[in-house]
């Protein structure tokens, strides 16, 4: 994902802003890292350049 996308990404739960932690870059592209909600503290992974902003209980590996 391009770094500029951060401006418009929000937490799916409460729509609060996200901060980026542990980012690894390839040029302007963020290839991995963690997005953390500034309000509820929920953590969302960026893997292979794609942020996973599914609500936590919809994430893969979460028992339905």
């Amino acid at each position, binding site marked *: *994902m*391009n770094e*500029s*996308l951060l*401006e*418009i*990404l*929000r*937490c*799916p*739960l*409460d*729509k609060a802003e996200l901060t980026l932690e542990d980012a690894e870059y390839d040029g302007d592209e963020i290839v991995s890292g963690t997005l953390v909600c500034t309000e509820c503290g929920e953590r969302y992974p960026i893997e292979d*350049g*794609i*942020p*996973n*902003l*599914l*609500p936590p*209980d*919809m994430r*893969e590996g*979460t028992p*339905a």
Partner: protein
Amino acid sequence: MDDRPDGDPSRTARTAAVKATYERIATHFAATREYAWPEVKSFVADCPPGRVGLDLGCGNCRHAELLATRTDRVVGLDLSRGLLATGRTRARERGFDDQLDLLEGDAATLPLASDTIDLAVYVATLHHLPTRETRIASLAALERVLAPGGRALVSAWSTAHPTFDGHDEGFDTTVDWTLPGGDPVARFYHIYDPDEFDADLEQSGLSVRECTVSSGNCYAVVESR
């Protein structure tokens, strides 16, 4: 606003089931979705250019590709990571990858800031959301993210399609996807009655510019209020 789905485990499980279905069929499904729909082409061609486009339920990004001709950047959002991978491949092959950001997310809890999207398509996706409540929530979320003056095209499969002759009200069903080798994979659909489509749009808060039925699908051109 709080979209926490915790209170409805059934909705969460059913959305997860739709995701699992598309993860399973992603590659084959995307390969059969080569061309943009003419209705989407003409919608995009008529829209003023903008800064950010959104393809909600982007699949292989065939419509994100069109949006990239009108907006500086495009966000492709899908529930299925497997489909997003096919979108990335298409974007690289066709040279719009430098404008595209992919996002794994849920249309009912749209993880985007308010008033940021100038042009959106929400095509052939709404009908996969498991309950009326979540479908209206996703339309309301679209209303929230559209910038003032921004415009979106929404479509859903409808009872007007010849496949559903004999149905005069909206209904839930499953439609099989057949994988090479013959394995059928059931996909959830809510087939919309056109009046019900209008009613859900009305309830979502979106402002409707134009509503039509074409090729068995309901279409609406909408704006934020």
